[in-house]
């Protein structure tokens, strides 16, 4: 057996104005799960796209099973058994699951395409390898983010030829239950002798699943850990950000102000029902729940993205009925959406355009945009949030995932919104940036904003929130103070393993 399935050496890649990779190396041994970590913009996705043949490296060599590959094209790489689960979901919304899984690798019989056979194969794959039930005839657009991720995985692995599978932040859209499933699937792949590259910002995942880890910083590999256990998280952080981070979450202690947002008996058939909640000025209220718990739909409804069938919402004591997000924004309620590439940013617009999109009046005079003022305003936000590269004219699509998220945040932080709905605000954000974002959220609360934080990261909810609402099957099943709450307790509540109510939480909610 060869010493490495994959050896990438001194890879360099420059985009106009940005050095994405600058002599980065990566070596993966057969049958191992190899972690790849680094700050946002460190070049993780770029090196993976170089391997995929999406980008052509300016310099460096790639060998697979000790055979040099040159040039690196997607065909050669595919033939060598390398498969990719990219960070972005490239699925056609109006294709069925089966079509998506088999696109470009259809099974044909003498009678042409065999839809039945493919559908059965896809469904079997979901059941046996990923341990989920997904109907092969469902349209992609009717699937949630988590299921789409699984479709993407099935698409890469269905032909059974994989020897190295690359996962670029696969768990970002997943909830803890699904993550477990994914890990089980990944371990099963490993048992079959398939090597895995695993990119993630969740260090607990890295230490949990990986055998070795490579750390990237500023386009270079700065460290390789040959032995990974729970205790190396700090070592990883230090290698990633170049400094130690002592506290992920800012020390909180909020003074709760006036009641700002209140919902009573909110319901939408099939998604959630009888939701009552409240948020006060200066308070961070968490919403926990698995995918499908109705958490996502609830947030969308509050924001006017979908109509509420029953119930009512009051803002500052006045009943409101939002028929579109524009109404919500006009009343000072804003949303940082979970899918930033679809709903957060207009990807083909510049960072500056995206930051100013919601407050164009402020950078205009009689409706005419004042470009300098717009650019200055954007630059200020870019500096404030440390968005990299710090160029307001760069197209948002070209930003790394974490920097895209910061751009969405930058847009709303620049407005005078009083209520922030944050839906998975730190998905795909590196530890360093996470700390910054948490601090920003904390500052918002301190300045009197009411914050609703919906998250699948229990640590984040406990660390940031004053109160946590737990949703299950469309209902709020628990309402509890976050003080003294343990991750295990919270996970138990979201999965329904625990049923006792926290009376104390209820008491101070009124």
């Amino acid at each position, binding site marked *: 057996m060869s010493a490495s399935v994959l050896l990438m050496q001194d890879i360099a890649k420059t985009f106009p104005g940005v050095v994405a990779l600058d002599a980065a190396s990566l070596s993966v041994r057969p049958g191992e799960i190899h972690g790849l970590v680094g700050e946002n913009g460190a070049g993780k996705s770029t090196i993976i796209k170089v391997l995929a043949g999406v980008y052509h490296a300016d310099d460096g060599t790639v060998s697979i099973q000790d055979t040099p590959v040159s040039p690196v094209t997607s065909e050669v790489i595919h033939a060598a058994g390398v498969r990719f689960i990219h960070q972005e979901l490239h699925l056609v919304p109006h294709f069925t699951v089966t079509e998506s899984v088999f696109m470009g690798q259809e099974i044909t019989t003498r009678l042409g395409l065999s839809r039945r056979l493919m559908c059965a194969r896809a469904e079997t794959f979901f059941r046996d390898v990923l341990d989920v039930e997904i109907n092969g005839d469902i349209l992609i657009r009717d699937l949630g983010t988590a299921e789409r991720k699984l479709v993407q995985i099935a698409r890469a692995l269905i032909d059974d030829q994989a020897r190295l599978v690359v996962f670029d932040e696969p768990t970002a859209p997943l909830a803890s239950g699904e993550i477990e499933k994914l890990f089980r699937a990944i371990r099963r792949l490993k048992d079959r002798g398939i090597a895995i590259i695993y990119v993630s910002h969740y260090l607990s995942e890295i230490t949990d699943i990986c055998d070795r880890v490579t750390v990237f910083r500023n386009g270079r590999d700065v460290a390789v850990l040959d032995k990974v256990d729970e205790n190396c998280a700090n070592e990883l952080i230090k290698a990633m950000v170049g400094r130690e981070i002592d506290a992920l979450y800012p020390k909180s202690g909020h003074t709760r102000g006036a009641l700002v947002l209140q919902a009573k008996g909110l319901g939408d058939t099939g998604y959630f029902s009888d939701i009552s909640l409240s948020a006060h000025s200066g308070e961070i209220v968490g919403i926990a729940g698995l995918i499908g718990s109705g958490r996502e739909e609830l947030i969308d409804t509050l*924001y006017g*993205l979908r109509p509420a069938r029953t119930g009512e919402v009051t803002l500052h004591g006045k009943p409101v009925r939002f028929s*579109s*997000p*524009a109404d*919500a*924004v*006009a009343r000072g309620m*804003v*949303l940082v*959406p979970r899918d930033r590439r*679809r*709903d*957060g*940013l*207009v*990807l*083909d*617009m510049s960072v500056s*355009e995206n930051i100013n*999109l*919601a407050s*164009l*009046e402020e*950078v*205009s005079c009689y*409706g*005419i*945009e004042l470009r300098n003022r717009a650019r200055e305003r954007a630059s200020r936000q870019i500096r404030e949030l440390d968005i990299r590269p710090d160029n307001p004219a760069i*197209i948002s699509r070209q930003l790394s995932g974490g920097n895209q998220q910061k751009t969405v945040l930058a*847009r709303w932080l620049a407005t005078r919104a009083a209520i922030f709905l944050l839906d998975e605000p730190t998905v795909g954000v590196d530890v360093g940036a996470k700390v910054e974002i948490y601090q920003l959220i904390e500052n918002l609360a301190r300045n009197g904003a009411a914050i609703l934080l919906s998250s699948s990261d229990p640590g984040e909810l406990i660390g940031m929130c004053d109160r946590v609402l737990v949703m299950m099957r469309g209902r709020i099943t628990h309402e509890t103070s976050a003080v003294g709450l343990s991750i295990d307790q919270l996970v138990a509540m979201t999965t329904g393993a625990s049923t006792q109510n926290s009376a104390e939480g209820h008491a101070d909610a009124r």
Partner: protein
Amino acid sequence: MNQTLKSIIARFGFLIIIVAFVIFFSAVNPVFLGGDNLMNIVEGSAILLIVALGMTLIVATGGIDLSVGIALDFGAAFAIVAMKEYGFGWYGAALIGISGGAIVGLLNAALIVGLKVSPFLATLGTFFIGSSVQRIFTNGGGPISHRRMPQEFRDLAVGDVFGIPTEVVIAAVLVLAYFIVMERSIIGRRVHALGMQRSAARVAGLKVNKYLILCFVAASMTAAVGGLIASANIRMFTPLSGFSYLLDAIAAVFIGAALHPRGRPNIPGTVIAVLFLGVIANGLNLMGLNFNTKDALSGIILVSALALVVAQQKLRH
């Protein structure tokens, strides 16, 4: 191919082609470059340009308007009937004509925003409805002529302002207005945003529906202005004549978008593309080609131009 050559082609490929055509046509026929002929080209392009402005706006919203021809017809019909049957002066007739166009836009907007029909199907529907309404009211498509229309109205097509043909002046004013709105104003910024990524624009709090309604009505009213000029020119309303502008307008918008560094529909691009189409039509005319050959040739040139568009966009990435 080396990098600089690539980037030159990516930036200026289309302009190079236009210049090449101008040189070619003037080599074949020296009349082509004469001042009179150039003004002819501009004047002959005015109505198409006006229609294409509205189309640019619609394509920027991510849609398409197949009913611009109907709006143009309605503009002409309403104005002619207002003058002929109801004795309106030129001013009133123009306003009524433009309102006629607005009806078309409102119908589109109602279908698209109200019933959530895709712009393609909605405007196709409007196209069919509008066509048959015209046939019904003209007993199968006969023209409504109005030889003794007020001179002021007639002047929209044949008059001049300080020596510049009125229709060119009107087109120029509209170009300026569209340019300011689409390229310089915050309305334009929002329209581009919702056209590029509707869901993100919505979440950013933009009033997507309001802007869609606005754009479809504005585009139809603009096309109706084209209709006023067309009817003033021939002193009659010819049913279903607006259709001839549709495909050229769409082509112009997409060629124009290719001229933009980020591939967005834009006013300067549309203007250049319309003039390009004018140059081709005029140049082929001067070459004395027969009607059928001319059509085939301009078709080939259009397809090549669009192929270039695609190649250009690839080169940029």
